[in-house]
């Protein structure tokens, strides 16, 4: 029999969660609720006695100082409505798991043969005069996500005060018999092939289905199959495995396609964007750097590896988790961060995680229009994603040091959730280099960490499609950072003791992908799914193979070391299971219950996917020319600009992330006199005994895509590099990561403008090549997410093409680092770099509701000169503050520098080196790239100007102590005079919730 334990706060104890929910209901739904009390509910199965239940309730499950509990009767309390929210069967319940383990430990040997289960739910007891309809709105619109949670609503009059809510156990039921289905492809026609792909969510096109069919028509294939005891038909295990491996998500088919590109004048045939523009640029840069090349492993492993110093290597990877976050923002983002953690952790021989980054793209949280079906309100996505990354990062003990939030209406269709993680590894362990993988035939396949469930099935194929009516629920997962932390604690010890040979993560495609990729090192594998630890019975072999259940790593272990490996795992309370062995048979061979259920040729599996041929046609868009007069009150304009979502402070989000755990924090995301100015980049010291630092920064500017993705990309790259340089990074030791999020660029009935969108992708790649090589900043890793569209019925929303460019670099001595806040009155204010009339796609134009046509263009040669000179000035210790000019241009950079330093500023625009139509608003808000605002103590003036000689550098004013931000315009009239407190207030308010 199951029992219910309810835990609530004693009278007089503040219910902070209840208050937070109340505030959200009032803010988001405008409903008049007076009070909300929360009650935690533990539904316990396993026939515990009354005394045992009491022991559990009064022990681990409640805190006697502040809480009451009740067993099998409801907790007393007043309310008008009660909502209870619990998980649906099979959804990860981390609290339930922890409660079960706690009860098991509590009972000790008294537990006997009993099997304990704990399922959690939460009650929200609402006081307030609201209708059932309102309560429904609260439950479905705020508290529960129907995809993963169920809720019950009871009114005070209907509530049974004697028995309370009925017991409900969200157990996965039904023990389906194990079946391996066979599908005959050989005889299938075109329609049938397409139907198979669609019905099974394989996301494969006709050519790919045909390639599969041809493989099964091949005599050699059939001979091998016969030997293995397989028939002529493909098994569902093989079909699903191929679909995962060949998915856009895993194989990057668009990036590797053959593209006929034309820009209207010239034509070009591109055989793989990835190879032509990304991989080849890195090769070229490494060659040019010669002995100074710091790259160690690029594009081959889970993440890129560069040298940090002679003894340590740095690893960095950025991923996206857009589609899952659209469906379940909390679970999607949580899984995004703990998921990307496993990439750099499972790179080379394995590396310790040292920081996270996060960049989100949302629609306005103040969105007022009606929402299309299946789209969650952007405010809900914002808060859910924020909380997911908070739990994922904080609970894993990894500081979240850098990020941003970008807003555009079109991210309503799909939010973008970029999560990045870096790690550090000794350059050698026991004399062996650590950045490469090696696996020998006969090494054992071992899986560690979490168990396998139905969660995350079809994640890889699902993210290779647009969000549609039938998007699968199982694609949503909830991560468990503590299970993962326990596993990584264990694996780092196992690594240092040399207990395993190779490691990789289980991400998209699950075992199918992790074992499949590792098997390429030895030349084959024999995987027995019978041994796979499951969360609950009833999984079919194909589900076990492709499940994306979280917190799992796959390892290759020398049979001689397996005993030690498993013993250490057991001791450290980490599940580890041998699932087979690596071979050199040339086959990806899978068994279940002694029977072969899949046997695919390795070559076919990994290289058999046919190359797509696509057409890309570029046509320069002609946006409406802006016609608006310069506003009479530029002070007011500045206040408005500071309040724009893309410019305003993101402090409320940043504060909720632990950005200094691990003790190496040097430049935090928030800096300045009141610890609240916006940092350009982050610096940490991963080795506490050393003053060498890691610099991380990023650039992102999707608005310029409305003009030309070439310049969008160039600007994002320049912004990332400029941000890193602004805090003191050395340009010669910077590596980049490219993360493309595109809307579907393949022309089809659904996407008639596919050729233009593909041309946008081509141009972005051309910029990657041109600017990585120009700056000497090689890409070491990257990722693309190509189907960021929403289509249900006639509504189609495509995101603006978005490139996130992240950089990781080095600063030799962190004590030379610079922050962006003005330091002292009387310091001189300089602008570095020429300002041009480049307002196309700018925040200023966006405020006037125009796009324009002149997006900023990056002139790399000039930028490099500036970056090197500035770095030299920083090294000689004569820069007081440095802030990059980006969104909102010079005016925003100046205002931020002033109010972050708690100081005023007097600026004269007549001194600003400027080219273009003479307008004060243009000079203030143009977003020309490669510019900085720098302050310098007067005594360092000469030295500074000498170092900067040959670069456009001009003194434009002074830092003042009066707390006033004053700007003299062209012609000498004072055009802005505002208190910095007022400017800061305008900047801080919008997202302060």
């Amino acid at each position, binding site marked *: 029999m199951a029992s219910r334990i309810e835990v609530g706060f004693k009278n007089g104890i503040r219910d902070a969660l209840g208050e937070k929910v109340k505030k959200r209901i009032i803010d988001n739904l405008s409903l008049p609720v007076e009070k909300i009390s929360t009650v935690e509910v533990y539904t316990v199965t396993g026939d515990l006695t009354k005394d045992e239940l009491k022991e559990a309730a009064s022990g*681990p499950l409640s805190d006697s100082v502040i809480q009451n509990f009740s067993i099998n009767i409801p907790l007393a309390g007043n309310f008008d409505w009660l909502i209870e929210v619990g998980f649906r069967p099979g959804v990860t319940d981390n609290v339930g798991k922890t409660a079960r383990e706690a009860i098991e430990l*509590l009972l000790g040997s008294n537990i006997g043969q009993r099997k304990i289960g704990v399922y959690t739910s939460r009650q929200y007891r609402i006081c307030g005069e609201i209708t059932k309809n309102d309560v429904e709105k609260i439950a479905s619109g705020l508290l529960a996500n129907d995809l993963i949670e169920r809720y019950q609503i009871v009114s005070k009059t209907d509530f049974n005060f004697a028995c309370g809510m009925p017991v409900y156990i969200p157990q996965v039921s039904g023990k389906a018999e194990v079946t391996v289905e066979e599908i005959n492809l050989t005889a299938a026609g075109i329609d049938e092939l397409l139907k198979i792909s669609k019905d099974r969510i394989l996301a494969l096109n006709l050519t790919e289905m045909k390639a599969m069919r041809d493989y099964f028509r091949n005599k050699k294939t059939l001979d091998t199959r016969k030997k293995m005891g397989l028939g002529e038909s493909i098994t569902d295990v093989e079909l699903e495995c191929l679909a995962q491996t060949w998915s856009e998500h895993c194989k990057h088919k668009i990036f590797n396609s053959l593209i006929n590109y034309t820009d209207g004048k010239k034509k070009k045939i591109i055989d793989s964007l990835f190879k032509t523009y990304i991989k080849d640029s890195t090769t070229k840069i490494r060659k040019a750097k010669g002995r100074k090349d710091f790259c160690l492993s690029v594009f081959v492993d889970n993440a890129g590896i560069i040298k940090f110093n002679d003894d340590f290597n740095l690893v960095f990877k950025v991923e996206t988790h857009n589609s899952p976050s659209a469906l379940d923002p909390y679970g999607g983002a949580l899984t995004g961060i703990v998921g990307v953690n496993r990439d750099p952790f499972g790179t080379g021989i394995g590396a310790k995680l040292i920081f996270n980054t996060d960049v989100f793209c949302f629609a306005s949280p103040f969105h007022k229009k009606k929402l299309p079906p299946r789209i969650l309100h952007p405010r809900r996505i914002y808060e859910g994603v924020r909380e997911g990354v908070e739990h994922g990062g904080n609970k894993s003990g990894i500081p979240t040091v850098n990020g941003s939030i970008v807003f555009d209406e079109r991210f309503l269709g799909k939010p973008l959730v970029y999560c990045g993680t870096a790690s550090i590894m000794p350059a050698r362990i026991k004399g062996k280099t650590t950045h490469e993988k090696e696996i020998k035939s006969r090494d054992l396949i071992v899986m560690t960490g979490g168990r396998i469930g139905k969660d995350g099935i079809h994640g890889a194929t699902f993210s290779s499609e647009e969000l549609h009516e039938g998007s699968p629920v199982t694609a949503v997962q909830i991560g468990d950072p503590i299970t993962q932390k326990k596993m990584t604690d264990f694996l780092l010890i196992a690594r240092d003791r040399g207990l395993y040979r190779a490691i990789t993560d289980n991400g998209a495609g699950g075992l199918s992908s992790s074992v499949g990729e590792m098997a390429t090192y030895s030349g084959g594998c024999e995987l027995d799914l019978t041994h796979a630890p499951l969360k609950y019975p009833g999984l079919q072999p194909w589900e076990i193979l492709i499940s994306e259940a979280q917190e799992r790593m796959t390892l290759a272990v020398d049979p001689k070391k397996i005993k030690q490996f498993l013993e250490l795992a057991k001791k450290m309370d980490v599940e580890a299971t041998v699932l087979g062995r690596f071979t050199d048979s040339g086959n990806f061979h899978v068994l279940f219950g002694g029977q072969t259920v899949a046997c695919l040729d390795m070559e076919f599996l990994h290289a058999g996917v046919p190359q797509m041929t696509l057409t890309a046609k570029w046509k320069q868009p002609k946006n409406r020319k802006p016609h608006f007069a310069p506003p009479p009150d530029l002070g007011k304009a500045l206040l408005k600009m500071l309040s724009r979502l893309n410019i305003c402070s993101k402090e409320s989000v940043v504060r909720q992330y632990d950005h200094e755990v691990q003790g190496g924090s040097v430049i935090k995301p928030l800096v300045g006199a009141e610890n609240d100015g916006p940092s350009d980049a982050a610096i940490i010291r991963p080795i506490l005994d050393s003053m060498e630092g890691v610099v991380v920064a990023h650039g992102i500017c999707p608005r310029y895509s409305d003009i030309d993705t070439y310049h969008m990309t160039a600007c994002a790259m320049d912004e990332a590099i400029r941000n890193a340089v602004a805090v003191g990074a050395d340009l010669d030791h910077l590596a980049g990561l490219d993360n493309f999020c595109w809307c579907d660029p393949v022309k089809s009935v659904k996407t008639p403008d596919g050729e233009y969108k593909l041309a946008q992708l081509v141009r972005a790649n051309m910029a990657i090549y041109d600017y990585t090589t120009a700056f000497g900043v090689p890409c070491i890793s990257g990722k693309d997410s190509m189907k960021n569209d929403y289509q249900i019925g006639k509504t189609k929303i495509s995101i603006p093409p978005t490139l996130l460019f992240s950089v990781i670099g080095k600063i030799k001595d962190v004590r030379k680092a610079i922050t962006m806040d003005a330091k002292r009155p009387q310091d001189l204010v300089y602008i570095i770099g020429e300002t041009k009339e480049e307002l196309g796609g700018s925040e200023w134009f966006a405020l006037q509701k125009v796009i324009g046509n002149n997006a900023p263009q990056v002139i790399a040669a000039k930028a490099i000169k500036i970056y090197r000179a500035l770095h030299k000035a920083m090294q000689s210790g004569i820069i007081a503050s440095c802030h990059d000019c980006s969104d909102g241009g010079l005016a925003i950079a100046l205002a931020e520098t002033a109010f972050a330093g708690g100081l005023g500023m007097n600026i004269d625009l007549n001194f600003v080196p400027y080219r273009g139509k003479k307008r004060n608003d243009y000079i203030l808000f143009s977003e020309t790239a490669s510019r900085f605002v720098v302050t310098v103590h007067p005594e360092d003036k000469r030295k500074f100007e000498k170092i900067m000689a040959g670069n456009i550098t001009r003194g434009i004013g002074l830092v003042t102590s009066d707390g006033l931000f004053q700007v003299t315009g062209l012609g000498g009239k004072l055009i802005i005079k505002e208190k910095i407190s007022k400017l800061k207030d305008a900047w801080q308010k919008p997202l302060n919730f």
Partner: protein
Amino acid sequence: MPRKVKAIVLTGNGTNCEMEMAQACKLSGADVVDIVHISELLYGERRLEDYSFLNLPGGFLDGDDLGSAKAGTNRFLHAHITGHKEMLFAQLLKFINAGKLILGVCNGFQLMIKLGLLPALDDNYGRQSTTLTHNDSGRFEDRWVYLKTNTQSPCIYTKGVDILYLPVRHGEGKFIPESSSILQQVEKKNLFAFQYCQKNGLPTIDYPANPNGSINAIAGICNESGRLFGLMPHPEAYLYRTNHPRWTREKLPEEGQGLTIFRNAIKFIRSKKF
């Protein structure tokens, strides 16, 4: 010859500040600093009695899923040492009774509170009489706060400290005593070693200087001997000048001021009083 100081930093099941806590012990001059996974204690491979200074670092024991450090407390109370009759908690009590030092930071403080190691009025170890719960803001926050030292406190860790500036990084740091009589005793015996204060040193209950709404602005408490001490802010997060959020604009000593807490502990162990 001065007494050797052996420090143990306990990890596992979600702790995450062990590296910097060990670094703090090392920089303060401890002779031995071992980061020990709790399984090593539970398997009897290492024993607490071999150390004189136990560090319980911050983190999220078992994800704080049942409330901060609740499941961790349950483990400490009910876990056996494999192959021995001894319980882990008995080993811990022995350590305390030997007059040795325990420092709990953040999650480690929450653990000490919920295990009843603090304030442990009348040396009644194991009875929880206060708690640390959700911040009034209902959110986790990372922000630096000023702490005012209670100079009357027996706390051996805060000697010579007046005002300290450290980061808090928690969602459950609000100190609440079980009753007003417990609070009275904590105050009478000066067990509150640190209070959240304004820049000028005035204790405050106002957010954000008091980041969680702690009763009487209490940020850290000790036991009556002053040898057991727990606090929500992180002294191990401020070991270097460059950890300070305003190091690029203020004149600061090269050494981080959080180190004082650890130096005091080690000085005490080397002293005759130990």
